[in-house]
């Protein structure tokens, strides 16, 4: 009798535990999330990832912890919800440079507009006569893979003089890099300039530069890497440790690459074929490779970002009259398309595409392509509705 009661009790307990588990939210599928680490990190690397995650997503700066006094946002996570693309309310504005002679408005706060300020301080205004462009924060996922693409591979993809005559002439961005940046192994130098690859104008060399500049220009945090206050222009004591910045860099490096959804679906496969047929893949190159890395899961990998990391002429419709480095105002770096279908999950439920979010749909983004993208746009317009739908479904599956 005692045994039966015990069994009944244990059965009831197990049933309750199972029932309790059913009442808890389930983990979303990996393919439906942009955040999360790349597979294969070891325990030590997971700890660093988590430290960077906290600094990136949870550390909110205040006036007493270094914010501003001029700023764009109060934390990294404010602009990169779920590590995805930003929203027009988090767009930043850059101004003051219209050609390769450099930024003529550095003395008036350029290149980045800090349009927010602590009480008592006046935020910056765009100076009269300065060209400017608004830029949405990009998705963070897979950046570690992009950082490790060897310069040699980018040079192979480049065709600055359109030698093959296909109308597409991407070029690498040769640009100066700050003294604290260590060129990657195998880096190619040309007259003291290196191939930069991050940012809308591909004007940033690596994730350390991206992170240190973002802390400084976006949040008003000075560091050992970027020690000058954006308000006073004076060199100040660091407001963030090197360790925290390196943790954030590690976090960005080891965020996983977006996972495609339903890649074997026949309609999506057909869309992928169309993508190549109409020439999209000439710039949005499907496959790249990483070089060596001390982080095992990133080293010597083949991955599929749908970008060539090169600058392309995108035509007059996307020429905002502002640029960086030696890029022209009409040139933009090919954005990676991976994760495109999940953009809405970080943009409040709707698309805000292209550099400033002006395109409310994938189709409108395609139709705004000009310059080197003109042929593909025209080819897209020749597609019938079904083919267009297949192409859009493919892009949304990335």
């Amino acid at each position: 009798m005692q045994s039966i009661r015990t069994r009944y009790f244990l059965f009831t307990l197990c049933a309750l535990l199972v029932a309790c588990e059913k009442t808890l939210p389930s983990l979303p599928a990996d393919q439906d999330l942009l955040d999360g680490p790349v597979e294969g990190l070891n325990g030590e690397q997971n700890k660093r990832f988590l430290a960077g995650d906290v600094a990136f997503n949870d550390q909110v700066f205040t006036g007493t912890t270094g914010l501003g006094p001029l700023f764009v946002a109060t934390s990294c996570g404010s602009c990169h919800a779920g590590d995805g693309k930003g929203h027009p309310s988090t767009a930043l504005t850059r101004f003051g440079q219209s050609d390769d002679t450099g930024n003529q408005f550095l003395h008036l706060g350029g290149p980045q507009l800090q349009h927010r300020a602590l009480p008592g301080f006046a935020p910056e205004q765009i100076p009269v006569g300065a060209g400017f462009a608004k830029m949405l924060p990009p998705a963070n996922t897979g950046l570690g893979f992009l950082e490790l693409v060897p310069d040699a591979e980018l040079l192979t993809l480049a065709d600055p003089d359109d030698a093959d005559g296909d109308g597409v002439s991407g070029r690498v961005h040769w640009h100066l890099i700050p003294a604290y940046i260590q060129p990657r192994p195998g880096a190619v130098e040309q007259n003291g300039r290196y191939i930069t690859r991050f940012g809308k104008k591909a004007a940033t060399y690596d994730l350390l530069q991206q992170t240190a500049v973002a802390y400084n220009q976006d949040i008003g945090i000075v560091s050992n890497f970027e020690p000058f206050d954006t308000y006073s222009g004076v060199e100040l004591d660091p407001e963030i440790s090197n360790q925290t910045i390196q943790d954030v860099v590690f976090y960005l490096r080891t965020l996983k690459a977006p996972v495609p959804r339903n890649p074997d679906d026949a309609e999506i496969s057909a869309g992928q074929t169309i993508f190549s047929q109409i020439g999209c893949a000439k710039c949005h190159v499907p496959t790249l490779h990483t070089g060596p890395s001390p982080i095992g899961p990133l080293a010597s990998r083949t991955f599929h970002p749908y970008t060539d990391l090169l600058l392309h002429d995108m035509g007059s419709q996307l020429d905002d009259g502002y640029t960086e480095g030696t890029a022209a105002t009409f040139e933009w770096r090919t954005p990676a398309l991976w994760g495109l279908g999940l953009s809405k999950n970080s943009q409040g439920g709707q698309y805000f595409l292209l550099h400033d979010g002006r395109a409310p749909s994938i189709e409108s983004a395609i139709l705004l392509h000009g310059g080197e993208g003109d042929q593909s746009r025209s080819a897209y317009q020749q597609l019938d509705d079904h083919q267009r739908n297949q192409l859009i479904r493919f892009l949304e599956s990335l």
Partner: protein
Amino acid sequence: MKTLYTYGWPESRRLFLLLPFLLLIFPVFSQTDSSAWLQRLEALSPADSVPKQLNMDAVYDRPFLQMGKMPVALGGYVEGNTAYFSTDGISEGFSFQLPRLTLFFASTVARRIKFLSEIEFEEGGREINIEFASLDIQLHPALNLRGGVLMNPIGAFNQNHDGPKWDFISRPVSATQLLPATWSNVGFGLYGKWYTGDWTLGYEIYLTNGFDESIINNEQNRTFLPAAKANNDRFEESSNGQPLVTAKLSLRQFRLGEIGFSYMGGIYNKFQEDGLALDRKRRLHTYAVDFNTTLPGIGAKLTGEWAWITIDVPETYGQQFGSRQQGGFLDVVQPVFRKKMFGWEKAVFSVVCRLEYVDWNTGRFRETGGEIADDFKAIVPGVSFRPTAQTVLRLNYLYQRQRDILGNPPASTAGWQFGVSSYF
């Protein structure tokens, strides 16, 4: 975090704060409890069974124990619970908590002059706060003077927050994450009540120290009134030399229940220092409606509160910091069994449910016209068991959805809580 009263004390000395109370309290456990409060809770319709009591009386509406002819009456309550939560499929596992141990002592200094203090040890002693320490002088039932550390009467929960009075383990999010319960300040003011027939009308009005710029300069990354609680300097001086005004009007009818209308507002920013202008004066206004009633026939008790907040946020801030907020909760407690259970004569078993909503940023994006989210919804069904009036065991299931400012897919959190709360 150190408080005004313990700042600079070593940990071991702070423990000495506890000892005198414990030594006094344990010997008097067997003393007789005297208050009408007990009868009220036993009836499980606390508001209606003592028709002239209002929510504002909560601070004295507690079981005090008096030992012999000592001039001081003592009391307190403790809360402990365990929880298992999961957010979007990720759980930190079980946790066990002692969220608060509260001691209060009251003294009648002379006829119509009384003093009451409430000291709270939160999270196992990590925080020690004096939540209430006021001297009340009654000139007339309709005119009482109160001064000291007092709880601003905004909404109902802030003044009536004792764990054993509630059938839910967690405090309402709207009361603690929108309004800053428990929100105490140094100040003084007036209160009083009038009685006529079945009706009771009460009022309170206080001037206190108040908020500071942390409400728009905090690590929550939103306009967040509770951030001001971290500033214990407010027990020493006002952050800007301007008083916070809190006023409340309450009306109770014997059969219908009680409704309260309250306001709390003032200048929150430091607009000048040493005579030099730093900024213009920026105000916040908080309005709240609260009610409690017992449905005739079925005996279900409804308790609710809703608050609206407007804040003058600097134009130089982004829309991350909202200038309008609102939120509230509704609790339903339905007694199912009220009989002898497990040897307790007047035990009560109830089913309960709480609905909660908070919007920390009401408005639309300037850039897109889309809705600003930054909101929270929750439902908390559960059961409670009161073996005696002073003690409640609670089992709650919580399901909540919280959206970020952009309105992206919400983070879903759910979990189970089991806990006990008891006066002693």
